[in-house]
């Protein structure tokens, strides 16, 4: 699904990602754990196509296409989704109309017809119930005045509506209470199947206890310093990052 080869990225001449290699197979759940400031969000943004980074070396392939030439919206249309660590507020635009615009843009890119509005709203309502969200949040302005937890849930709500192939979850668990964490992890786990892949970025164990990743990588200073299976999560929890650095 995703293959990152020898990637080096810097911002304002400071190296943030340093000769990174990472492969995510179709159907796999991959976790990246790393301390604050280690470059996790930078990595997510470089995959999603955010501008402003210097790519010094390397390539990223998504389903065997080099994506460096694609705009963020093209990557999105091809199935890359990023749940933002800090979702952005857009006043005056209802959450549901934003989402409908997004879905129709993606459909248009892929040569599909616009959504049927009634079916879309029906699906929205069912899903918001599942995520324990009041339906009023469909008509509220996008992320505007949402609590931290609501913003995170909304990222997952968008994801489940858009149905991407590669889901990058950037610290989806920070600032969530236990109940919200459970609802979100259930939603994500249910979505995961043999045709899609997850890249879960976190520095807590909790979320991973629910989602049970297939592979775990420990990330520091823009590099993977240790890889393993789920047992690595427990080891990390016991010993802390220091042990691995």
């Amino acid at each position, binding site marked *: 699904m995703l293959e990152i080869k020898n990637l080096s990225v810097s911002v304002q001449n400071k190296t943030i990602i340093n000769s990174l290699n990472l492969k995510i197979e179709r159907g796999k759940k991959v976790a990246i754990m790393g301390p604050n400031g280690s470059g996790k969000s930078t990595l997510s943004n470089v995959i999603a196509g*955010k501008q402003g980074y210097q790519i010094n070396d390397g390539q990223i392939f998504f389903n065997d296409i080099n994506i460096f030439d694609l705009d963020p919206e093209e990557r999105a249309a091809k199935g890359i989704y990023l749940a933002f660590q800090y979702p952005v507020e857009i006043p005056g635009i209802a959450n549901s109309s934003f989402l409908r615009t997004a879905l129709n843009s993606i459909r248009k890119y892929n040569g599909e017809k616009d959504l049927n509005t009634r079916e879309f709203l029906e699906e929205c309502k069912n899903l918001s119930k599942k995520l324990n969200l009041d339906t009023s949040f469909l008509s509220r302005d996008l992320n505007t005045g949402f609590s931290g937890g609501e913003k995170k849930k909304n990222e997952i709500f968008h994801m489940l509506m*858009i149905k991407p192939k590669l889901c990058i979850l950037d610290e989806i668990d920070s600032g969530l209470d236990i109940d919200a964490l459970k609802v979100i992890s259930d939603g994500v786990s249910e979505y995961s199947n043999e045709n899609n892949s997850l890249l879960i970025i976190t520095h807590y164990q909790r979320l991973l206890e629910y989602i049970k990743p297939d592979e775990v990588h420990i990330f520091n200073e823009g590099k993977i310093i240790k890889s393993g299976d789920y047992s690595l999560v427990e080891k990390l929890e016991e010993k802390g990052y220091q042990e691995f650095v």
Partner: protein
Amino acid sequence: MTTSETAKIVEEASEYKYGFTTDIEQEFAPKGLNHDIVKFISKKKNEPQWLLDWRLNAFDMWKNREHEMPEWANLKYDSIDFQDIHYFAAPKSDEEKPKSLDEIDPELLRAYNKLGIPLKEQEFLAGIKNSHKVAVDAVFDSVSVATTFKDELNKLGIIFCSFSEAVQNHPDLVKKYLGSVVPTNDNFFSNLNSAVFSDGSFVYIPPNVKCPMELSTYFRINAANTGQFERTLIIADRGSYVSYLEGCTAPMRDENQLHAAVVELVALENAEIKYSTVQNWYPGDKNGKGGIYNFVTKRGTCLGDNSKISWTQVETGSAVTWKYPSVILKGDNSKGEFYSVALSNNMQQADTGTKMIHLGKNTSSRIVSKGISAGKGQQTYRGLVNVLPNATNTKNFTQCDSLLIGNDCGAHTVPYINVRNELSDVAHEATTSKISEEQLYYCRQRGINEEDATALIVNGFCREVLKNLPMEFAVEAKKLLELSLEGAVG
């Protein structure tokens, strides 16, 4: 029915409605402005002596200030030679008109296509040779629609006709209210308009009648060639209500670069007038060449107690916009509102805002202005809240937001607040923001391209204003904003 038969019927219909239109084709006044021209205009319209005197008086006042065009606005444009203009609809001879759409600014054509305007109407809007008759055919259906509406309005005693018609058929009303809100010499352009106004709309709503439909200039087909010096008068008698729509979203080209309209609204006791405008005159090409200069005076008086006047405007067109729809709050407990979206892209300049003049007790006003600048566009909000000594318990709230797209545009806010009554509550908030990179990136990550994302964010920025427009107008206004923003990003 053959085309020629249709044309004949339309011609008769239009003759019946606007007696002199066919004559104009043959006769028009030479360039320049003097007593004779004013008399010519008045005679052509078969006006009564009092109106001719009124025009001549206006002309004399204007003559004294001919070289004193106001300069306080934040606008730059070439000086206008007022003696080099035709004041009585001089239709371009066919030789001078563009021969086909091939000769029209391609940007304009793209806009027509995006708005889904049929080819024949495009030709009319663009002022193509021989397109008038075709356009009359094209709007023929709406002639009959308009007639049906007219019957319904007649039953309720509502008068909705061209200004010229009103002069003939309802002279008492016209005489009583013409110039009562915007005095002849109020400003340079109202002064000019008073001398030479061409035509416009007249509306009278009788006591306690709620006008059952939105009155729209669209149903007054007279539009051709009256655009330059329009004169509109709307009177809502005691306890009545009317919602009036002006303008159209299609960018209209006009050979006349200078536009100076006057609109007067009068709301008597317990009456309410809602006036919505979408202004999209040709803004000129990317370098600002050929755009319309729009100097408009719009004002309403809440004459009676508990009356209300609400202005909503979406201003996306014209090269230069100079416009301050205002409300004089004379009656006790009266309310004034001003909701505005103004967008300046490329070389466009807009200096726009409102005046709320509080005279009566317990009056309130609300101002929501959303200015958007893109390209090299310049945008100024200029507003006055004036609370006079007797206006006890005045309430005013002003929200004035500017949105910048790109680095070469400008936004300016010039609020004048003058409070001479201590028991008043006047609040002003202003913000200036840019569309943030983070917002654009977020939208794009969700699959929405940069241009659509910009339009989306702008629509969100304007929502408070757009939601005041009647439904179908709001939908069109949204499309229009998107269109006017094209090329503003990337």
